[in-house]
């Protein structure tokens, strides 16, 4: 089930260094939201706080609240492992598990919860997830071959299939197309458009055309200078951000005058 995300006054730290400052943003369910901004502005860092993946880095912590349909992800007693089963993630470089077959890659997250599934159940999950990722027709005859044998674009869609197999509420994508060729990129963008029927999708991208093509709303992040924290500058409908931005910095960035 798709859920909305409400972030209130979030600060992100790496040790004592404040990487992102004072972000408040409301992300609608069943929508695609794009984060754009120059490198190092904290958009990936912020994205990773939405499923508590930033905590993997020692010393990283946050102040503030992230509400998933009203439940605070940083509330007392909340298990980051449980958070990640609700908020899935797709990374910059395709990362299927190299030692697993295509089928096992899709099932990797499903098997984690210790559930014993029958063969017909798992077959169903594999097929529906791969169909959901527009990959079924390409791989249905070689499900037992290693996932690392696929092309880069196929691997990325396999990672998306793996993420949706656990039926998350939200899917985060951290520059999912930056390692892909234009045709694979189009395939993934088409997929993102279909995913928003069922999921809340948040995508970080360096490609402004991509943000314009796939997203309903766009958030522009910027950084005042090296060593300063990144901030959310403007958040609005994608058409407004690209055609009629309110902030000067946004206009400069989307028109290519800097960044």
């Amino acid at each position: 089930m798709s859920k909305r995300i409400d972030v209130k006054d979030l600060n992100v730290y790496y040790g004592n260094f404040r990487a992102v400052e004072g972000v408040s943003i409301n992300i609608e369910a069943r929508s695609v939201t794009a984060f754009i901004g120059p490198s190092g502005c904290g958009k990936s860092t912020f994205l990773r706080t939405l499923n508590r993946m930033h905590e993997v880095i020692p010393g990283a912590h946050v102040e503030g609240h992230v509400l998933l349909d009203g439940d605070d992800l940083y509330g007392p007693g909340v298990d980051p492992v449980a958070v990640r089963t609700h908020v899935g993630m797709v990374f910059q470089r395709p990362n299927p598990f190299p030692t697993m077959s295509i089928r096992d890659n899709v099932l990797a997250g499903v098997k984690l919860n210790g559930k014993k599934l029958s063969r017909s159940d798992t077959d169903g999950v594999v097929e529906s997830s791969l169909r959901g990722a527009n990959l079924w027709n390409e791989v249905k005859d070689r499900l037992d071959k290693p996932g690392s044998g696929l092309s880069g674009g196929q691997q990325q869609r396999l990672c998306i299939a793996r993420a949706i197999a656990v039926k998350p509420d939200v899917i985060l994508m951290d520059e999912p197309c930056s390692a892909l060729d234009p045709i694979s990129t189009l395939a993934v963008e088409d997929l993102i458009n279909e995913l928003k029927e069922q999921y809340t999708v948040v995508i970080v991208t360096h490609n402004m055309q991509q943000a314009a093509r796939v997203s309903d709303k766009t958030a522009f992040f910027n950084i005042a200078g090296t060593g300063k924290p990144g901030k959310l500058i403007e958040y609005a409908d994608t058409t407004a951000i690209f055609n009629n931005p309110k902030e000067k910095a946004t206009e400069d960035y989307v028109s290519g005058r800097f960044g």
Partner: protein
Amino acid sequence: MTKAADETAHASPKGPDVTSTETKTSEHSGGARKLSSREGAAGDKVFSGTALSAGILILVVLVAVAAFLVLQAFPAFVAPQSQIADGKGFWAYIVPLIVGTVIAAVISLVVATPISLGVALFISHYAPRRLAQILGYIIDLLAAIPSVIFGAWGISFLAPALVPGYAWLASSLGWIPIFGGPASATGKTLLTVSIVLAVMVIPIITSVCREIFLQTPKLHEEAALALGATRWEMIRMAVLPFARPGIISAVMLGLGRALGETMAVALVLSSGPLIASLIQSGNQTIAADIALNFPEASGLSLNQLIAAGLVLFVFTLAVNIVARWIISRHKEFSGAN
């Protein structure tokens, strides 16, 4: 080798714009750059020459050792078997030693492998960074202890300390042949040897495994965590499959050490003929038997000991080949493609 070195010596830097410290041009180039000459070509030749000769050297050493063993062992195989090992014949002499060696090595690996993997995982994925560093140093230090020290420790501390345990094993589990009594009163048994060997191979397996665990791609660890894996599930999903060939290599390294270990076994074990019980004195390993008997050996008995060495050599080689085969069996899924 010499030719390439000559070229290095003759070539000289041509201009201020060259940044490489290697030689810049080959002897063909005059002023203008030609298609046939390439900067750094001499360095390439030096490198390939060095690499080739190093590779050849290894083969030469291996062949020389094997040839020495075979030549020197040959008389023990062809001589009348009644003249060897007090008339028992070579195979009657060597088989108990092989069995003793294998038992000691296998027990030591069974003990050492889980401990080593646990310690390596703790260092690489659980311990805080500072503690991990300290532990890493300690493990490396442990690996540097000479085997004679382990032997001395085994004979003066471990063996007496294990005596009550052996007595208990003999009285309560004595119906299992390997714990058959009466237990040794000195503790100088094959089981003690195996434990000493385990302590010796733990640092080797641990430090190799730790290095491999640390090399697990962040990408795959994060993939597992992002699916909602706990740390242990992440280790099972991303770290262990990635490290599998490395773990096998590490265990084989440990096995090599355990099979060939001489000093510690010779010191600790009160040797004797092959017996099933691990807690009585008796049994012997190939390496320790060679070391103990070598000083007084001459003529055919010397050939016999070298033949025993040849058997150990072949056995270790076979173990390594099997390990390679196990590693290569899953090549398709190794992620190397």
